[in-house]
């Protein structure tokens, strides 16, 4: 049973990394939201399995929060924002697909090397989960860097937070109060960003962040 629990945990964590890769190559906004919802579901499954294996019932609450907020509330809200903004056109990726994927693989390799060296004498399951979690964080950052649309940068930021949650559960869990406060702060940040998106769109008629650079003061 011990071997199977290891393998299932690894499988779910690896699945999370895979879904993060899938996020990188989506170029339509609606499918991006669907894949993000899938990432939240896989995260919830992984956290729930950790709750079962470690015997930590408060992690079930974390999984429930992930499912309700990240897999349902936030995608639906973003859906509505996109519909109101009227920007369900193609998302442009900076740089072509091939080099982005190669960069993603390089980041995964780097994360694995760093994590497995730094935590040389820890529990093997925790080490490898931490390595996967760092990979998800790095891939979220890569996504933010290679996108031009503000909405997809928000999704990248959210997937980064998913990686942090995976790391927290792998390291034998955070106290519940920390988890709830982190989740609420992300939600507040998200609401603020949503409000700003509308204000930006009113002022500049676009949410393309590269276009916003032109209005930077002091540059001529």
């Amino acid at each position, binding site marked *: 049973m011990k071997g199977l629990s290891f393998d299932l945990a690894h499988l779910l964590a690896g699945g999370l990394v895979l879904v993060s890769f899938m996020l990188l190559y989506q170029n339509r906004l609606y499918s991006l939201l669907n894949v993000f919802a899938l990432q939240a579901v896989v995260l919830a499954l992984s956290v729930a399995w950790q709750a079962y294996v470690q015997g930590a019932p408060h992690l079930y609450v974390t999984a429930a929060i992930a499912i309700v907020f990240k897999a349902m509330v936030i995608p639906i809200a973003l859906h509505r924002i996109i519909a109101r903004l009227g920007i369900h056109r193609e998302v442009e990726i900076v740089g*072509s697909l*091939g*080099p982005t994927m190669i960069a993603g693989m390089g980041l995964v*390799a780097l994360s694995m*090397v760093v994590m497995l*060296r730094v935590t040389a004498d820890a529990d093997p399951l925790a080490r490898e989960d931490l390595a996967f979690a760092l990979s998800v964080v790095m891939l979220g950052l890569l996504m933010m860097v290679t996108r031009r649309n503000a909405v997809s940068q928000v999704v990248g930021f959210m997937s980064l937070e998913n990686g942090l949650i995976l790391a927290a559960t792998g390291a034998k869990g955070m106290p519940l109060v920390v988890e709830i406060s982190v989740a609420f702060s992300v939600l507040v940040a998200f609401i603020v960003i949503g409000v700003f998106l509308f204000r930006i769109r009113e002022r500049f008629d676009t949410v393309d962040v590269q276009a916003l650079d032109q209005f930077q003061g002091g540059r001529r």
Partner: protein
Amino acid sequence: MPIALFLACDASLLVLAVCAVVLHRRPVATTLIYGVALALCLAQLAGALIHLVADAAPGVIVLPIGLPWVGANFRLDALSAFFLGVINLGAAAASLYGLGAGRREPEPQRVLPFFPAFLAGMNLVLLADDAFTFLASWEFMSLASWALVMAHHRERDNARAGYVYIVMASVGTMALLLAFGLLAGPAGGYAFAAIRASGVAPGLAALVLGLALIGAGSKAGLAPLHIWLPLAHPAAPSHVSALMSGVMTKVAVYGFIRIVFDLLGPAAWWWGVPVMVLGAATAVLGVLHALMQTDLKRVLAYSTIENVGLIFAGLGLALAFKANGFVAAAALAATAALFHALNHAIFKSLLFFGAGAVLTSTGERGMERLGGLLNRMPATGLFVLVGCAAISALPPLNGFASDWLLLQSILLSPQLPQWALKILAPAIGAMLALAAALAAACFVRFFGIAFLGRPRSPAAEAAREVDPTIIAVMGALASLCLLAGILPAFVIDALAPVVRGLTGAQMPWQGGIAWLSIAPIAESRSSYNGLLVFLFITASASLAAFAIHRIASNKLRRAPAWDCGYPDANPATQYTAESFGQPIRRVFGAFAFRAHERVDMPAPGEMRPAHLSVAMHDLVWEFLYLPVIRAVEFLAQRLNYLQFLTIRQYLSVVFGALVSLLLVLASWP
């Protein structure tokens, strides 16, 4: 065969070169020179094989020529014997080709003297046992091949090719000079025996590794020093191109192995990293460029770069394994690299001879003017097809056997402890697999456009089969490809003494395995039997043919091509070399060449034609060489000022130099 006989053969080759000068334009010169060269090369090939198979002790000889306190040291050990075998095999084939094609050479006096000199130079490099002899023979080899590249110097491209070649060869020789200087140390012990006896400090050893990579790597065609190869190899006459691609690059590989594996002593763990990375990058870069060329010989030159990259990747793996003490794995990687060197010499010579035959028969080298040659030159086409299949690593031919061994050695690399090697090895494996797949596509294109389809020009339509001597040479090389592929166990066992000298271990004895299979680690782990695969395929094909012809019909009717009901008589409607490479250019081009397509469409109503242009950049040339060239030109422009000084200014320059030297002398502690 004692080493003295090898030296006698090489001396005879030098005498032959002088004879060629003396005989000048006599018609008997061609037959005599190539015939005697053939005999001498066959003799050396036989001697090398005997030395290798008998696992004889190394032979040493010291001649009293050259530097007075060093002499000229020559040594014949297993490594030299193996490479002597490879070199003389290629040289014998080229001499036989020369016998057949040499009569049609327009300016034989520009080729004949330098051909035996080139062969002598290459053989002497392999036998040299001290730095002076090594470098002298290396330079002699470079100069002789340069003269051969300039043989048809009236064509403008060839002049530029020769210029780039001589500059790069000089850079390489200087790097090797510095390397040997560092190895010899302040004591000045230039003999290899002295270098082996004294050690080298680790920092200096790293520097020597870098210099060896530059020196030997540039001659072999390792990126980014490969720029001269696609210019120079196609410029020479066809049998010389085969020698330069198939054989001279192996001499460079020998130089690298001799310096890094033999003279440098114990390796550090990270030495394998630059070798592997450069090798894999060279392989992918070479084959991507090959897919974009339309000149037959240029495709083959870039393909040589790819194969050299594969060899260096294998050598890098062997270095990494050896440094960590995994000698069995190192033996496997080294065997794979050396086997690939032999295979490449065989099939690259075969392919260059085929290109030469096409050039002789049609006068065309560009693929966009060829086509339909298989019907008109059936024997050439068949043997070139075997060469293309071998270089694409298809079982049961020899290319697959060495490729298989290389992939098996990558599978052994998880045991390497260093993290950099752990991450790098799968990346190298992926790049090697990518290079192999691209090579197969490249040679489908090479054979399909040039030999298949319909002729694209009157010259191709009027092609006739070439001289029977040339066909015989190609047939011999094609059968060698097949033999080495179905009987790889013998090659691996013959390589055992060489690999033992390099890594300290050898692959398990393959001769004892049932049915002549090869098993690199243990029979239970993985094995491959080329002979059985070959027999199975032949048996199945014959069975299918027999069954179909007996049970079903065997009627055949010739008719115009179906072409979906819209046949076009104009052969320009079939695919060209560039159109075949277009999908691959779309996938890899933006990354590898900054390829950019531009379509210039006329507006509706305009009568002018539309234009499609493709812009591709050679990134290595633009980012590495052009800045250096511009810096050198800038410096030369500035220094040119020194040509036009007055007498008073010259005197003051001399005066200033004298004063500064006296100052240095005064302040010397």
